[in-house]
């Protein structure tokens, strides 16, 4: 039986495809971006010989040399502030904040400069830079290692904020973030670093400013991003057993918000819940709920729920299981609605 070209291509792809963790995919994205464009430089705390505390920059310094990849002094405002200067000169710095909470010393540089430079200069000065932030919890981290900082960045006009939930998106979105002429806060869910997928590089998924329906359903829409996409999918599978058809949307981009995709899903199902690890009060889910309600009020059968962390500081390792929004908690929330299942 003769094989078609398509079949042969698929075979080649399968051969090229390799199992890869999200950390590995991010590493590959950095490598490929650096190969493609010598304006891309990588620096931050411990990103050189160590390869970063999560090994996302592993091997980059030995490959590209220490003029492309280097350990900076230990000062986050310094890292972001110098990256602003480097981007002004036409470089494309990709810098790492070691954990969410350690981006806070750089808050002023990010909010008052990174976010505002383009507007300030009427577009004459763009800042093509990427701020990588290993984010959120569920890794048994001690205090300050499991914050979720996305609400701060998303509330800041001028920033683009994205968070991949899987290795393919991680690769594709990081490449796109580096190529973007806008500064991007690129959030990497730590608890997903070791999640695996089979990838054929260079994989390109949907544009990074689009949300994606990752599971179709008709009764309710679960909206997650980063670590909670897995939570939503697990809850959806479990709910199916109980006869509930759950659609899951992976936001991918927190700012901008893909109103089109998410509203379409919510109009279809008429019920939705947004899931995140961060505290509920003032969290990103508030924006999701508010804007979806504004735009789809008369299509909604119930208020949009927020299934989130509590309004407390992130707990110590032994207590985090009680804090995190689990699939069980999602199921409980869904059960609180009255369903008239066939």
């Amino acid at each position, binding site marked *: 039986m003769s094989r078609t070209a398509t079949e042969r291509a698929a075979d080649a792809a399968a051969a090229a495809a390799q199992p890869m963790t999200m950390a590995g995919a991010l590493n590959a994205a950095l490598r490929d971006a650096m190969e493609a464009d010598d304006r891309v430089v990588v620096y931050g705390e411990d990103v050189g010989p160590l390869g970063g505390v999560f090994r996302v920059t592993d091997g980059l310094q030995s490959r590209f040399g220490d003029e492309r990849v280097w350990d900076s002094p230990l000062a986050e405002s310094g890292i972001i*502030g110098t990256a602003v200067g480097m981007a*002004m000169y036409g470089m494309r710095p990709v810098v790492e904040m070691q954990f969410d909470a350690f981006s806070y010393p750089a808050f002023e*540089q990010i909010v008052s400069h990174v976010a505002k430079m383009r507007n300030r200069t009427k577009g*004459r000065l763009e800042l093509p830079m990427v701020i990588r932030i290993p984010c959120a919890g569920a890794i048994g981290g001690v205090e300050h290692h499991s914050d979720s900082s996305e609400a701060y960045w998303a509330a800041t006009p001028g920033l683009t904020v994205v968070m991949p939930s899987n290795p393919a998106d991680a690769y594709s979105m990081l490449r796109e973030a580096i190529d973007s002429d806008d500064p991007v806060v690129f959030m990497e869910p730590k608890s997903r670093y070791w999640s695996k997928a089979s990838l054929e590089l260079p994989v390109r998924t949907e544009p990074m400013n689009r949300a994606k329906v990752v599971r179709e359903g008709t009764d309710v829409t679960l909206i997650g991003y980063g670590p909670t996409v897995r939570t939503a999918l697990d809850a959806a599978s479990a709910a199916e057993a109980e006869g509930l058809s759950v659609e899951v949307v992976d936001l991918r981009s927190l700012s901008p918000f893909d109103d*089109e995709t998410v509203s379409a899903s919510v109009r279809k199902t008429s019920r939705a819940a947004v899931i995140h690890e961060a505290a509920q009060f003032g969290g990103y889910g508030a924006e999701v709920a508010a804007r979806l309600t504004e735009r789809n009020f008369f299509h909604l059968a119930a208020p949009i729920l927020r299934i989130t962390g509590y309004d407390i500081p992130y707990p110590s390792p032994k207590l985090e299981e009680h804090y995190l929004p689990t699939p069980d908690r999602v199921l409980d929330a869904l059960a609180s609605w009255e369903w008239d299942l066939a």
Partner: protein
Amino acid sequence: MSLNVEHHESRVLPSEKPVRLLDNAGHALRGPETGGFELPATETLLELYRRMVIARRFDVQVTALTKQGRLATYPSAYGQEACEIGVVSAITADDWFFPTYRDSIALLTRGLEPADILQSFRGDWHNGYDQRAHRTAAQATPLATQALHAVGLAHAARLRHDPIVTLTYLGDGATSEGDAHEAFNFAAVWQTPTVFLVQNNQFAISTPLSRQSHATTLADKAVGYGMPGYHVDGNDVAAMYAVATAAVDRARAGGGPTLIEGLTYRIEPHTNSDDPTRYRQGREVEHWKRRDPIERLEKYLVSEGALTDEVRAEIGEAAEALAARTREAMNEQPELDPLELFDHVYSTPRTALAEQRAALEAELAAHRTEEEVTAR
């Protein structure tokens, strides 16, 4: 001219007495007070004089316009001309400059148009000039933040093997900010071609230097970063220019960053909305007025026979012409387009912003219609 060898090779404390080349009576100095620096050539000094006179005329003019309500705010650099002009004159058009809100006159020296410099203070837009074309960053308001930008840009240029230098200004108050420290440290560790000028005008709004630092001199800070530091008479433009030129040369040659403290005084209020009578004595201001940087150089140039009546007249005319241009520019009230508010935030278009833009557009159109109706 080059910097003292010791400063390259080992750590040395900046001199407690500021480096000075001309005394207040305009006499050229010799001996240790000069820190080994040589007096710049007379023609150089004459050019600096010219720039300072023009700068001051501009500054006085803008202060007056601000009092008349033409500008939202204006932080004057009156009395700081030796720092402002002396140091920025040490870099070339290819070098990058990172100024603060206080440093409008340095921008003027750098060739920027009054109308462009003042756009932000008039309130039209946050920044009014082409930073890349002028290699001059926006005048920074969040204190000390721009120093890091200067270091980053210098490092980028170095990686590209472009022989440029970055120069940044900051105030005595700004040295207290964490960002100043991080900028000094990154510059020293990375050995970037960066010159930091601390204009110690002895006040941060109302807060005197004694509440800002316990160091003998602000230049002392350099020691902690392993970089050379110079404590200089900030009302002596000859010294400011000489030290800055040496620092710029050293930076360009790969010798790394330098911290220069210019000891000067803020003669005017912090901005037009400040009330200095609350925190300082008029006597102190008078004392410093008698140490005017322009008069000092003038005395020297006159004694050297370099400042003839003819030259003086020519400079005066140039200054008046600039003042007139500044007045004209500020009397114009350019038509601003509110819809532009949405156009520069992102390079990648956003639907939500387009919606908001459309809403404002409709609102403005409705408003115009209303006005027309009312007018009829």
